[in-house]
């Protein structure tokens, strides 16, 4: 196995971790279930410690494993990263086990999975590595496929500017995303509020160029898909976009899927497409050598 030779980080298990683990496990119906809850709790506490060392904000306040109903039903070990609106799943790995077992209930809204290696003595654990959330649903992933903790840091860093569109349907917006009418007054009369549709806009700043407004409208369809309509407007009293302004739609890997360019008298640019839940896309706005990108997750 790969991880024997490579460097791993050891995390001591605190007394408080054992106190929580014991308390949560003692509520369970059977010894086996109790053991699962015990190890899940320790795994979450260990990953918390590690994130704490690196000053990465995290909380268990919204964790399912910290809720008596959820932890009794599901095999969950989730840790919230509130800045990202995502969870890290901390998966215990027992001695002799060579795969990470991901329960189906631990897939939704996960940024990824951290493998936590236990030994017979429950004094410390080793962090085996990180697996970014992926769409393929393997229930067991060989430990050799785990990436390093550096990949976790990169994923968290990239995630920090991914706007979570699913939260828009629940009325949760980042501050910079404002009601469209307040940004583009001419749209006030044209927008008809509809169920399952949310629109918000954001001012995009460049150096030495007039600001733009990016408007995103999302609509839930009956098939579980989300229709997205993006528009770029000039900000303020300016009537037209700068000629040559280019707007591109990027997929998760950064490949261009759609593009539009402003002509001499273009009032706005629009891109329409539909997404599946968990799809990640980016919008790149560029003019000459300047460009800015916004990332979204559905």
């Amino acid at each position, binding site marked *: 196995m790969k991880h024997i030779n490579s*460097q*791993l*980080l*050891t*995390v*001591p*298990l*605190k*007394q408080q971790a*054992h106190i929580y683990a*014991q308390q949560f*496990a*003692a*509520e*369970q*119906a*059977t*010894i*086996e*279930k*109790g*053991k699962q*809850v*015990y*190890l899940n709790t320790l795994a979450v506490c260990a990953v918390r*410690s590690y994130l*704490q*060392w*690196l*000053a990465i904000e995290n909380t268990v306040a919204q964790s*399912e494993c*910290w*809720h*008596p*109903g*959820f*932890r*009794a*039903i*599901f*095999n969950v070990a989730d840790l919230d990263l509130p800045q990202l609106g995502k969870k890290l799943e901390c998966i215990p790995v*027992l*001695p002799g086990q060579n795969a990470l077992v991901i329960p*189906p*209930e631990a*897939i939704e809204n996960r940024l990824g999975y951290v493998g936590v290696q*236990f*030994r*017979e*003595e*429950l*004094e*410390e654990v080793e962090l085996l590595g990180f697996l970014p959330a992926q769409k393929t*649903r393997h*229930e067991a992933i060989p430990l050799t496929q785990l990436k*390093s*903790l*550096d990949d976790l*840091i990169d994923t*968290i860093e990239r995630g920090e500017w991914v706007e979570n569109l699913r939260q828009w349907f629940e009325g949760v917006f980042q501050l910079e995303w404002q009601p469209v009418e307040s940004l583009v007054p001419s749209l006030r009369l044209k927008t008809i509020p509809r169920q399952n549709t949310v629109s918000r806009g954001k001012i995009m700043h460049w150096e030495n160029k007039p600001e733009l407004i990016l408007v995103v409208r999302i609509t839930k369809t009956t098939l579980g898909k989300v229709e997205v309509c993006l528009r770029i407007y000039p900000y303020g009293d300016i009537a037209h976009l700068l000629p040559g302004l280019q707007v591109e739609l990027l997929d998760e890997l950064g490949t261009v899927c759609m593009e539009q360019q402003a002509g001499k008298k273009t009032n706005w640019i629009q891109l329409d497409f539909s997404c599946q839940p968990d799809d990640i896309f980016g919008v790149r706005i560029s003019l000459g050598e300047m460009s800015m990108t916004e990332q979204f997750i559905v």
Partner: protein
Amino acid sequence: MEEELRRLIAEVRAYPSSSPQRRKALNKLLMLTQKLRGIYRSTHPNYLDALDRTFEWVCKNIDVFNLERSYVVWFNGYLKWRIRDLYISDNEYIPSLDQPVANEDELRTLGETIAHPKFSLSGIDLLLKTEQEEQRQRQGKAVWEYIKQDPAGKLTQCHLQKDPQCHCQLLAQEILLHDPPKKIAQIARELNIKNQTLYSHWNRHCIPLLREIALIFEPKP
């Protein structure tokens, strides 16, 4: 090792705090620290907590570490101080230069006077046997009873359209309550249902329903 250590400390310091580059360099520094000879070890009950606090403190304070001093002494100084008092503020810590902060014998004696429960993987079963029996009202047990009884009939009503026998209660018992838990693929074979059909029924209908049920069981104040 010493040279590698100094290079890593310089690397960490070169990047702004909270930057991914700094955090990655801290990863390396922490891993190297854990391999250093001379890092203080103890059987004191506070040791593991203090060690955890020390790693956090090192990450926060590496910028003020004096490169002309010994890193291990700097590390152990805080660690030994922390072992003696886990809960006072960092502000109270005054690193004394090269003087060991605490006498090792003193720490050890203190450690031996406090009972130090040993936790182990194979000990969990025994521990839980007593702990679970002691709890009069076990919420986890109540949740399982709910699933087994299905008092509102919600779980049995949530079934595959073509197969009323394949309902959420049955699946929850097999996948979540059964020991060892059964795999969806195994149940699909047993019930002669397509794997994908069962998987999507479980994910789309059963998990959300079970989440609703989980919410009935409020955390105790």
